[in-house]
């Protein structure tokens, strides 16, 4: 057995994921959105927005960023960084908001399948934040 088979989960046939598309699915214990950037690269990240838990499968790609449909925050799908609005916020507001990072899963294409890692780059958040 290929070593990556232990570490990766086959999530969907690669042919079913067109550039710009997003799909939500269950991968192990996580709700995950799998998408394909316009460049053709498959990516995977947590299903709920780190801001207020909107469903990211309803979002759109803007370059390498996912645009959340609810408040249009942008998250880099490679680094997990928030690209908008955190970098624009003044220090006092940043201190209030804290860190907003998107949990990602390594994703690739193998033998006609989209496969994603079982272990995320950072712990994804599967539930809405406690209020």
């Amino acid at each position, binding site marked *: 057995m290929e070593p990556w088979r232990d570490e990766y989960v086959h999530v969907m046939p690669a042919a079913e994921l067109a550039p710009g598309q997003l799909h939500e699915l269950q991968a192990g214990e996580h709700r995950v959105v799998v998408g394909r950037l316009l460049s053709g690269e498959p990516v995977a990240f947590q299903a709920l927005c780190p801001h207020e838990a909107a469903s990211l499968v309803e979002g*759109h790609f*803007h370059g390498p960023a996912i*645009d959340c*449909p*609810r*408040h*249009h*925050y942008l998250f880099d799908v490679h680094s997990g960084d928030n690209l*908008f*609005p955190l970098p*624009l*916020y*003044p*220090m006092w*507001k940043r201190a209030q908001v804290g860190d907003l990072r998107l949990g990602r899963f390594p994703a690739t294409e193998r033998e006609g399948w989209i496969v994603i890692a079982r272990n995320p780059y950072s712990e994804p958040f599967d539930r809405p934040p406690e209020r």
Partner: protein
Amino acid sequence: MGKVARQVVEAAGINVNELLTKLVAAAGAEFTTFYYYTILRVNSIGLEGEGIKEIIEDARIEDRNHFEALVPRIYELGGKLPDDIRPFADQAGCPDAYLPDTLGGVAAERRGAGRTTFGEYPGRQPSSVQDLLTVLVEAERCAIRTYTDICHYTFGKDHRTYELALAILNEEIEHEAWFSEFLGEGPSGHFRRGSPGVSPYVARYMTADVGRQ
């Protein structure tokens, strides 16, 4: 509320409650942006700042116009604005456009070093106008994403909302171009408005008749 107006949209396959969530969020974003642009505009001072004050004013008034134009459609579809402004602001579809650190710091931090006979002139950090323009251009880009989403959602199904969203989108795209051009991101295709906030695309949807000559 327009009973048939809502029914035909539902019959076309639109989830009207979801559409209303989008429209109220868009109206919230316009309302809060109007507020924050007021603060950004009054802080747009100095040789460079005064130069961009007029377009901030255009964008500020046109964003208020967008709010005015959205409200009747929300009620026609059977929706409403929240009774309390606080949740309304919280559910705004774009984040708040805060004054950047280089303009909004403690006054003492912004003072110039040199004293004059009148005391100290307020100093301004070198990047403050750039920072201000960046806040403005990103706010407009958020608005473009918002109305593109509503256009996609309503295209071919809810003609009236689609046309309204498209009219607003046209103005948001122009606002982005103005600020982007001031940032030097590309050549300018910018023409002046005849008067501040004239809303060439949205004016025909406005029942409150503000911002027009």
